[in-house]
C-alpha cells in the first residue's frame, strides 16, 4: 500500500503505471487512476481505460469498479472484453437488487438524484 501511494503521488497519468514492474501494483495503479475519474469525468475515464494496453487489464478495472459500485455494473459489464470477466459480471448482474444499494463511492449526485447505470462512452 505504501509503495502504491508513493507511486500514485509520483505518477502523472495512466502511462506512468506502465513503469511499475510489480504486476499487482501496476494493476492497482491503473485501477486507482481510472476509478478516480469514473463518475467524475467520463471522457477522461475512457481515455484512461483505453490507455491500458491489454483487454484483461481493462476488464480488471471494469470488474473492480462494478463490484465497488454495483449500481454502475450494468454499463461497465456491457463493455467487458473477455469471457472470464463476463462470467464474473454475471454474479453481479444476476442480483439486480445490488444496483439499488446506495452508492457509497460516488459523491457527485446529490441525494435523491436518479443515478445512471454507467457514464457510458464519450461521444
Amino acid at each position, binding site marked *: 500500500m505504501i509503495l502504491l501511494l508513493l507511486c500514485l503521488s509520483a505518477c502523472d497519468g495512466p502511462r506512468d503505471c506502465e513503469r511499475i514492474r510489480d*504486476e*499487482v501494483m501496476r*494493476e*492497482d495503479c491503473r*485501477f486507482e487512476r481510472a476509478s478516480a475519474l469514473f463518475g467524475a469525468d467520463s471522457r477522461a475515464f475512457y481515455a484512461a481505460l483505453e490507455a491500458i494496453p*491489454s483487454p*484483461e*487489464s481493462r*476488464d*480488471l478495472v471494469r*470488474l*473492480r469498479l462494478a*463490484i*465497488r459500485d*454495483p449500481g454502475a455494473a450494468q454499463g461497465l459489464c456491457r463493455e467487458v472484453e*473477455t469471457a*472470464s*470477466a463476463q462470467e*464474473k459480471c454475471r*454474479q*453481479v448482474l444476476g*442480483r439486480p*437488487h*445490488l444496483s*439499488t*444499494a*446506495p452508492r*457509497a463511492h460516488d459523491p457527485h449526485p446529490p441525494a435523491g438524484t436518479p443515478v445512471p447505470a454507467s457514464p457510458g462512452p464519450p461521444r
Partner: protein
Amino acid sequence: MKALSLLLLAACGADRTAGDPGNGDEALASCDAIAFAELAIPCRVQVAAAAAGRGDEALAERACAGIPEGPWVGECHFRIGEEMARAANLEGAVRHCGRAGVFARSCFTHAASLLAPSEQAPTEPVAVVEGIVGNLVRVDALLAEAGNVDRVEARDGMAARLWFNAYYGTGRADPAAARLAPPDLSSFAATAYALEAVRLLFPETDPLPTDAVERVRASWRGDVPPPTGGPLANDLRVGRYHTPFPVPGESSQARIPVFGGGVRLAGADPEEDLDIAILEALFFRTATPSDAFVPWLDDPRERVRWTAIRLFRRSRPEALNLEEVLKQLTSSADPVLRWHAHNALDELHPPPDRKHRGRPTRPAGPGAPVGPGVPDPPPAPQR
C-alpha cells in the same frame, strides 16, 4: 504474471470446491489469496452461500465477516438466507435475512418463496397447526432482534409459506388443519387448502367443471371426503402467479401475501375469504381460462368481484371474447371493475404515446409466469 492470470486467479474458491463439502475453509482461503480486494468480495459471498447450503453456518458467517462494510455484507447474508430457506432452515433464513441490511425486504420475500417443506413436518391436523404457530413464534422472536425490517410483512410472508408447505403438493387436502387455524392465520390456511384441493380435484389436463368453486366449498364443509392424490416433488410445487399491481380502491383493503410474491384480498368473513382463496387457487392452476372467473364478476360481494376481475384479465380466454367482456365492464356500476376494464383495454391497445415509449403501465399481460421463482417484494400488504 500476466493480467489474464490475475483474472483467472480471481476465480473463486467456491467454484473450485463445488461438490467438495469438506473443503470449505480452503475455499475461503482461496478468496483471501485473490490479489484484488474487490474480487475477493463476490468470492466470499459464493463461499458463504455454498456453506449455508451445506448447513455450515459457521463458515458462512466467517465468509461474510471478511467483507468490508457496504452493500455486499447485506448481499452475503441475503445469499445465506436464501440457501438456508432452500434447506428448510426457517430460523436460519430469518436470522440472516434480518441482517441483509437494505436488501432485507427482498431477502424475506425470496426466502418465503424458497422455503422448502420440512421432512419431519407433521400431518395430524392439530400438530400441523401447533407446528406452524410455534414456528411463527420463533420467527417473531428473531424479527424482534432484526434491524430495519417490516416485521409484519416478513412474518406474513413466512406464514403464507408455512401453510403452503403444509398443503400444496402433499397429496392431501384435508381441511381439518386449516379449519383449526387461529383467526390471524385463517386466510393463509384457507389459501393453502384451496390450492391443494384445486390441484387434486381438477388436474391441469382436464377441463375445469363449471361448479369447481362449489365442489371445493363442499370439501371444506366436509360434505364429501377430502381430496387425495399423488404428492408433488418440491421443485414442482409451482403454479401461475402475477406480479402485484396497485389498484385504486384496493389499497385500503386487508390483503395477505400469497405464492410468487403476490397478494390477495382477505374476505370480510370466513365464507367470503374461502371463496376468494378458491378463485386464487383456480388461477394458480395454469390451465384455468379467463372464462372461469366471469360468473364472479357480478358477485354481490365487492372483494370477490375485485378478485375475479384481476384474475380474469390475467388469464387466457377459452371460448369468450376477452375484449368484448372488458368493453361491457367499462359501464359497470363498480368503479374498480371499470378501472380494471379501461386499464386492461389500454394494455390490449396501448394509446399512441405509450406505444412510442414502448413501456406498458405495468408488467405481465395475460399468460402470467409460472413460479414462484425469486420475485421482487410485493407492495406492502395491509392487514
